[in-house]
């Protein structure tokens, strides 16, 4: 069977193949016209999402991204043989080309905003119902405002955004932003400034990463 890492373009992939794939396997490329897929052969491989394997998968994709545009595949994408991969590239050619153009020259930045005092006890023995509820309302409003602020500031610096989670007890916001590589520095700077202005929250920014969240067709 074959393990597939990403889809890219023929010119890009040829130079990125020096990396080793999972389990030390040789990286190969399958080309169909103006598309190319990067994969490796394995006799049997059921990648449990072990940290090491996931990081390796990510390293391969980053190596390809260093040489050009890449559509990262999710960890664990396997097919039976090259023919299926070739068919896939042919069948979804137009959609894949559109996706490549969408992420060309851009990287993904992840933003996670969490409540600063998630584990603080919200009530004591003598807390009145009214105080408890109004405190929850205030907290909710602060978090809503934080989400709006993040979207306003960071959305303006991005080509696209994707919200994964919002408004739960554990997280205020988990979102991914597609940012032109020339604006990554400014994005991180603005995010840092913003983090200081959102009361009662903490912000974690990751990236630049390969565009995992924007590789698939947007609806």
């Amino acid at each position, binding site marked *: 069977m074959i393990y597939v890492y990403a889809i890219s373009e023929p010119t890009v992939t040829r130079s990125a193949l020096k990396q080793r794939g999972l389990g030390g396997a040789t990286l190969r490329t399958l080309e169909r016209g103006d598309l190319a897929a990067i994969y490796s052969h394995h006799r049997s491989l059921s990648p449990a999402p072990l940290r090491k394997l996931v990081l390796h998968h990510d390293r391969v994709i980053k190596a390809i991204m260093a040489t050009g545009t890449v559509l990262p595949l999710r960890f664990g994408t396997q097919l039976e043989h090259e023919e299926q991969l070739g068919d896939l590239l042919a069948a979804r050619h137009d959609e894949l080309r559109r996706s490549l153009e969408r992420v060309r020259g851009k990287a993904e930045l992840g933003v996670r905003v969490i409540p600063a005092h998630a584990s603080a006890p*919200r009530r004591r023995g003598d807390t*009145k*119902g*009214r105080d*408890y*509820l109004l405190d*929850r309302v205030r907290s909710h409003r602060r978090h809503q405002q934080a989400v709006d602020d993040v979207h306003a500031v960071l959305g303006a610096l991005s080509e696209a955004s994707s919200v994964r989670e919002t408004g*739960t*007890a*554990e997280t205020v916001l988990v979102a991914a932003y597609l940012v032109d590589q020339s604006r990554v520095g400014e994005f991180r700077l603005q995010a840092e400034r913003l983090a200081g202005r959102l009361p009662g929250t903490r912000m974690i920014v990751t990236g630049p990463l390969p565009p995992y969240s924007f590789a698939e067709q947007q609806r």
Partner: protein
Amino acid sequence: MRVEADKQDVARGLAQLVLTLIELLRQLMERQAIRRVEAGGLSADEIERLGQALMALEQRMDELKEDFGLTTEDLNLDLGPLGRLL
């Protein structure tokens, strides 16, 4: 013994699932209460009673979690592509 361990796993897994659903409902009710307060039109008495009900719910959840030795993290089931439950 293998059978005993399996029974314990099943019981714990079941507790995890049930408590997760209860926590989900609690959060939904909390959100609904917040919406009602923000929409206005609630008397002071109603706000007090709503708040008390939510507090009691939260307290009960904490007790249940402690009884079963589960943390909030344990209840946040990862549904893969659907994201986390809570």
